[in-house]
């Protein structure tokens, strides 16, 4: 019987479609006997869906970019503005 640690590794491989038949069997068997890993697997699948939404829903994509500590440095902003003004339109 594989460990919970190994099961978590296989669950990640499952999301990426990289499991062999034997690995799928080992994971299924573990899940029959371990309620914690059943929940963990649901959470991993949920995480995968949230990540997909973050990449495909424009509003979610922008929400994930929210970060008060990071902004375009003022020098770069000034440089890009000047360049945009000079660029042929």
């Amino acid at each position, binding site marked *: 019987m594989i460990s919970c640690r*190994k099961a978590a590794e296989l669950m990640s491989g499952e999301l990426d479609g990289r499991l062999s038949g034997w690995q799928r069997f080992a994971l299924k068997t573990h899940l029959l006997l371990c309620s914690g890993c059943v929940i963990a697997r649901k*959470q991993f699948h949920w995480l995968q869906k*949230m990540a997909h939404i973050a990449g495909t829903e424009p509003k979610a*994509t922008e929400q994930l970019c929210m970060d008060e500590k*990071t902004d375009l440095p003022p020098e*770069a*902003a000034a440089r*890009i503005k000047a360049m945009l003004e000079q660029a042929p339109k």
Partner: protein
Amino acid sequence: MPDAPLTDTGPQQPLRVLPDSQTWVDEFGGILYRYAMLRVDDRQIAEELVQETFLAALKSRNGFRGTSAPSTWFIAILKHKILDHFRQQEDKPSGSQQLENAPFVDGLFTFTLHYRVKPSAEPSDPAHDAENMDFWRIFRRCLDSLPENHRRAFIRVTVDGVNSGDACRELNVSATNLSVLLHRARSRLRPCLEKNWLGTARRGNEDGRRI
């Protein structure tokens, strides 16, 4: 003659207008820079990518159809610039980057390899969570707590949908090590989100700020 049906805008969606290019940097420079920084993690490269995005936008602004928000349009251009950036990187011998040992994944488990904190919170409807601004703030905080290469692997593969061959080249790791990075990222994000979101009353809160 009947009106031509509007495509993909929905009945109540008014067409959006692209603002004047003089306002672009102030209005969209920040979000584009943050989007790029999450993916390249190099200030100078991120600045260059933002600059190239605005230049390309200037050339093709007649292509803006108004069916999406201007920010969405700029981000779509930036996505292409990021792909170009990684493709133009001179071909390094791929897979040369070795991974450091990561005790933090093992820290989630006891010495018998069981969970220290047993997963217990049932996840709910992803679409419902996605509408809550608090969720994305917490997701971002959990992402920020990851080591840089784990975060980038997770974002490029699971958020951006980059195929594993391209992701290996971008991150300069072998296919096996990419799997390890993804596993470690997920194994850290899962308990972070359980602790701060799934297992809390926040997510059921109907007053949560909508995005």
